[in-house]
């Protein structure tokens, strides 16, 4: 029987064991999944599994069990592989059966050969996803997720290989650990200068360890750095080819997954490809893919490792402070939720205070900001997304400092976010809409390819007058569509494909934003701090980490709650609406009712109430009235100035 650590360090040997026991029937696959499911359930075992988000690839042992939290960026074509194959020893004619699942390479011993014509061979299908870390993931998410586990994860793999760690000094290691984001960069840089000599290597055993130490193979003649296709510029982190063996139809592009699987960084993969590229052009298979496509679909394994998924689950959220799955009827989850609910109102009050300070003393804006932060698209009625709540915060001071710092605060609160600083150049030059590159046969990502519930903060205050070109117009249209319909039309050159999304958009602007929004809140600063930076950072340091964590839980948790309106309140709302219309039909339209209902919904949820009460409805009306009053006031002020 395999010992405890085995399933972590060499999961394939476990699989081999199960395979050998059950070989004649095909249910060994099910048994494997069950085995690992069991293992991972045991006391926090998931925490023991080293994560690719945290530990750089070269620290991880090849063929060990790893986990990876990622977003599906693209889906490649399904692959057919040898599910079961047979090796033959030419000398003794001894035949051995092997499984090809969870592997890139059909392995065999030095004295053996694979019999490709064997009758035992079974061809199976698997699907490859190109996954990237969740775009815009906040630093705190990473910190908290790996705070406790990093140590263990580091220790276990490093024992497996000798300390001759390929000329990297201790200091360097330390440095990289402190700045996990830097690693990739250095990693790439290193690999570029050190590739090459691997070609002639004969010993596969040595290759493996070498490769994991940061070596990898790009043929010297073609080395423009590989574009790892992150949606947001400046993103770092490993991109991964995730091979899924079952239920791949259930996953969609932009889904956030957590996968547990076998890490494969076999350098053979890269060698095969580079060889193929140099060698004869006569091979009929050669012309199948362009060089470009080759590069994208089978990048060097050390740069883009492969994970062969044993278990995969979609994540509702990526907040590490919450239990991963809230739907489960587990007592632990319930307990967590009810505990938190009991202390909800002080948390809300504190958060309101915090945001009021952040918004320079404007409590109404802070109230709306809370509503915005817990909004989520909960349903779609034919084309209409319900539950989106785009807030346009107008009246922001013109200098960038305020919006910049406001974003930093939001970043501290939400698990994923992106700050889009609008300018003529950025609109004209950046790529918002993902589009299909047919030469490389992949979906080239764009800014708007974001996971659900990402906060997109658009800063319009820095926008100057200027000319938008075609790309710019497209980008603005895409933003508009995103806000109104919560969908992005991906460009497939010959046609467009609509991908629904769920992104919280906050627009900061001086006047009314030129982008559509659900509600405009005009900021009325009560205090003008002389030094914005000092003010904001002092605000952040003033908050205890534990309180900050509560804020984070608060915002993520409330989003997931259910909500209903009783018949009684429906009646009341109806009456109210009719009454309002009676007095002045111009003042209240169906649109306004939409807004009020939205505000009421999030207001109730923000107080932890899952049904609408009369008081909340009145409060929602009051808030709306206040907000509108401000807008009118603002308009008249502007009118007087002119």
């Amino acid at each position, binding site marked *: 029987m395999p010992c405890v650590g085995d399933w972590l360090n060499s999961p394939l040997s476990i699989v081999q064991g199960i395979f050998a026991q059950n070989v004649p029937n095909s249910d060994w696959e099910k048994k494997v999944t069950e085995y690992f499911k069991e293992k991972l359930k045991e006391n926090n075992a998931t925490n023991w599994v080293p994560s690719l988000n945290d530990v750089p690839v070269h620290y991880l042992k090849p063929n060990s069990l790893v986990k990876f939290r990622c977003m599906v960026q693209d889906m490649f074509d399904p692959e057919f592989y040898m599910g079961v194959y047979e090796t033959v020893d030419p000398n003794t004619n001894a035949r051995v059966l092997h499984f090809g699942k969870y592997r890139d390479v*059909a392995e065999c011993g030095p004295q053996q050969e694979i019999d490709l014509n064997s009758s035992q061979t079974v061809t199976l299908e698997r699907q490859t996803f190109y996954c990237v870390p969740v775009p815009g993931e906040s630093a705190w998410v990473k910190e908290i997720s790996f705070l406790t586990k990093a140590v263990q994860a580091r220790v276990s793999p490093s024992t497996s290989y000798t300390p001759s760690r390929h000329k990297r000094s201790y200091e360097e290691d330390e440095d990289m650990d402190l700045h996990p984001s830097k690693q990739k960069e250095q990693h790439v840089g290193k690999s570029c200068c050190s590739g090459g000599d691997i070609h002639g290597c004969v010993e596969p055993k040595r290759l493996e360890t070498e490769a994991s130490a940061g070596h990898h193979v790009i043929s010297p003649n073609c080395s423009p750095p590989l574009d790892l296709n992150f949606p947001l510029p400046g993103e770092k982190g490993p991109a991964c080819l995730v091979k899924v063996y079952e239920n791949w139809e259930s996953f969609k592009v932009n889904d956030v997954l957590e996968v547990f699987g076998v890490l494969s960084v076999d350098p*053979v993969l890269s060698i095969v490809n580079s060889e193929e590229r140099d060698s004869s052009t*006569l091979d*009929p*298979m050669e012309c199948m893919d362009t060089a470009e496509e080759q590069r994208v679909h089978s990048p060097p394994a050390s740069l883009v490792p492969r994970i062969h998924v044993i278990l995969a689950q979609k994540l509702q959220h990526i907040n590490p402070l919450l239990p991963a799955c809230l739907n489960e009827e587990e007592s632990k989850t319930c307990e967590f939720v009810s505990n938190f609910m009991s202390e909800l109102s002080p948390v809300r009050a504190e958060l309101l205070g915090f945001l009021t300070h952040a918004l320079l003393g404007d409590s109404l804006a802070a109230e709306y900001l809370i509503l915005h932060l817990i909004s989520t698209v909960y*349903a779609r*009625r034919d084309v209409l997304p319900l539950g989106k709540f785009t807030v346009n915060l107008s009246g922001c001071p013109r200098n960038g400092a305020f919006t910049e710092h406001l974003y930093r605060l939001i970043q501290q609160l939400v698990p994923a976010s992106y700050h889009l600083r609008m300018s003529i150049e950025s609109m004209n030059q950046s790529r918002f809409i993902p589009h299909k590159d*047919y030469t490389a046969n992949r979906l080239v990502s764009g800014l708007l390819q974001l996971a659900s519930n990402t906060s997109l903060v658009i800063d319009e205050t820095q926008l100057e007058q200027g000319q938008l070109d075609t790309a710019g117009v497209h980008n603005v249209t895409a933003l508009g569509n995103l806000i109104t319909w919560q969908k992005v039309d991906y460009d497939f050159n010959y046609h467009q494909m609509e991908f629904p999304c769920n992104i919280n958009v906050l627009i900061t602007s001086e006047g009314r934003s030129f982008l559509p929004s659900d509600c405009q809140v005009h900021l009325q600063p009560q205090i003008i701090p002389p030094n914005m930076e000092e003010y904001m950072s002092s605000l952040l340091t003033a908050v205890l980490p534990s309180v900050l964590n509560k804020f984070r839980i608060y915002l993520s948790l409330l989003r997931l709650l259910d909500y209903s309106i009783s018949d009684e309140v429906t009646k009341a709302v*109806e009456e109210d609406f009719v009454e309002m219309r009676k007095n002045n039909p111009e003042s209240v339209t169906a649109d306004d009712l939409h807004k009020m209902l939205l505000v009421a919904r999030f207001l109730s949820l923000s107080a932890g109430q899952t049904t609408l009460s009369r008081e909340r409805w009145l409060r929602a009306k009051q808030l709306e009235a206040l907000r509108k009053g401000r807008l009118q006031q603002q308009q008249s002020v502007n009118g007087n100035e002119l």
Partner: protein
Amino acid sequence: MSSPASTPSRRRGKRGRGSNPPTPQDARSPPSQKRRTDDSTSTGDLQPMPTSPPADVQSPGAADALFSSPPQFRHSAIPLDFDISSPLTYGTPSSRVEGTPRSGVRGTPVRQRPDLGSVRKARQVDLHSDGLAEDIVATEQSLGQRLVIWGTDVNVASCKEKFQRFLQRFIDPLDKEDEDIGLDLNEPRYMQRLQEINMVGEPFLNVNCDHLRSFDENLYRQLIFYPQEVIPTFDMAANEIFFDRYPDSILEHQIQVRPYNALKTRNMRNLNPEDIDQLITISGMVIRSSQLIPEMQEAFFRCQVCAFTTRVEIDRGRIAEPSVCKNCNTTHSMALIHNRSMFSDKQMIKLQESPEDMPAGQTPHTVALFAHNDLVDKVQPGDRVNVTGIYRAVPIRVNPRVSSVNSVYKTHIDVIHYRKTDSKRLHCIDEEAEQKRFTEERVEMLKELSKKADIYERLAFALAPSIYEHEDIKKGILLQLFGGSRKDFTHTGRGNFRAEINILLCGDPGTSKSQLLQYVYNLVPRGQYTSGKGSSAVGLTAYMMKDPETRQLVLQTGALVLSDNGICCIDEFDKMNESTRSVLHEVMEQQTLSIAKAGIICQLNARTSILAAANPIESQWNPKKTTIENIQLPHTLLSRFDLIFLMLDPRDEAYDRRLARHLVSLYYQSEEKMEEEYMDMAVLRDYIAYARSYVNPRLGEEASQALIEAYVDMRKIGSGRGMVSAYPRQLESLIRLAEAHAKVRFSEKVETVDVEEAKRLHREALKQSATDPRTGIVDISILTTGMSATARKRKEELAQALRKLIQSKGKTPSLKYQQLLDDLRAQSDTAVTKEMFEEALRALADEDFLTVTGKTVRLL
């Protein structure tokens, strides 16, 4: 002697390396799951080279081939290498072309079929020595008359016979295909095809697998499962019949059978390992095609010393250069002679899943195709095609230095037949594709649905349920989705009548017009959504683009052309600039689009319905003004809309109440609950698609009468007041609407109910849009001439009054402008604006009564 046939082992053997142990490089196609488990156990024992001449299936009398066959013959790589003694092999292609008149089955050269896997040579297996016999079901060896192809259950002789019978007898009088023009449906269909081949000289016989299936289920099954073995047999059969009939026919090469429309797989996503080596048909869009690749089929070597020549076939893309000359035993004396080697054309094509097949939220799959010989360059990127071919999987080549193998296979399809789905089939609208889309249960369900009495209301209710009320508008859009019946009057010189219904929505901003448009755009398969602000004439029609690779000018089609047979939703119609709008004139009535630019002059079909939304000029609808004045669109364009609806914010309490309840419910109902309540969007979509493609209502006697009456009534209303209130265009609209309503009921005949509803809806729309705000009378001339009749009348009266005024002033040659206006104002009992005055002046100037120069008015 038998005929080994299955792919996994086919590649070896030609060079007789029988004694070699199997190496990983050798296999090309993985055995698909558990099928043919028996076929590859024997790789070890192959017959030595000399005794296995590459005889050809298609060539009778392979014995001749051994001695006399010209060089070309040997290259004709056919997957089945039958033994000479086999009864299957027959015919020599005596392609010693020079001078010999080629005719008859023996005279016509065989063209190799790389699509069936030219590189895959079947090896010869001596069954006696192999001990393989137990694997072969019912095989009679060597001279036996009944042979089953190895690894399959295909008996060549009976298969051939069956296929010949199929060709000779298959008649399907019900069959409707656009390629059938000129075919007598009561004669055997494929015999006529053969005749066509004789006349045209294109030696390809396309066979619809569906026909084959209805003729012989078993043969069809064999074709699907063992295409590589069965198709050559079909070739044989076809050629035998053909040359029997037309012994003097001269063809470029022997006839090749190209089956299409195999029902095996329709969707790329459903391909799985079990489809390997089977005949499949998938649909998709070409996204990339490679350049032509000359692929060497056979290399020609000559000894430098003794000039002895030899040929080496390409094996897996490699040439095994003979190291020793067999004649003079000199080593390394053989040199490759390029221009005597054989090449064939090949092209790699990437096919991408068509957008309709894609599940939401996933990216499209792609698959590689290999096209050979004639099929090279038959399709361009962007084409929608149905591809029939053989699905292949080959292991990725292995690094010889590492014993491990990449365990992934590469897959591709060897194309046998292309069928473009969009071009060439303009006269029948994807009928075939549509037919396949509905299962019988679905059709049954739809028909059941259509029998419901309130189906019209029901469907209208299901349309955009999130938009509240506006019942009539929804009904109008519903009828638009169904469309009228297409009528063709080309032979009487009037061309096609428009069957599409155009609708314009105008109204206050924020009345969910855009939402309706979005919904429609999402509902119909070929919808386009544009915004008037963001689209130019070019974007709507077509534009020229220079292909970056070929530097060739390419016509790229715009939204209107793309939505041919669909609906083009145009938001912010009023914001569209003048030149863009002018394009619409042609599209909306003639349903075509003429393009003359960059040297390309053409007329494209744009049979699209237009659903447009316009906002009033003053941001709020001014009830005191007419539609034209409110949206400032030219009346020429407006009159082309069948229905013009106003979407106004109704101000009444009951409505408010219902609206509030509706909205509140949106905010707490869960998604499942909503779906229960309304008809599924998918059902609606299917219902419409079914009606559009199958129901083609004609006017009944009663209905015609009712229409006539309705039209006469409409004309009558106005005639009492001396104005025309209806034009033939309105009659056409009525007909279309009535037809559409009949379609909703799945009725083949337009009846009075349909006309009633059409009338009602038309009147309703008119009431909204063509009411003269000054008089409150519905006046169609507001839409047709841009001015209500009363307004016109008033204008005339004013001009007359002015004329009288001037005349009363006596013979003054010139008058002051301001003076005249003041006088007129004093005289008139209604207020006279400056505009009205100017208009009156202009009217008089037109009558050559006066001229206006600056501030003076001169009499003439």
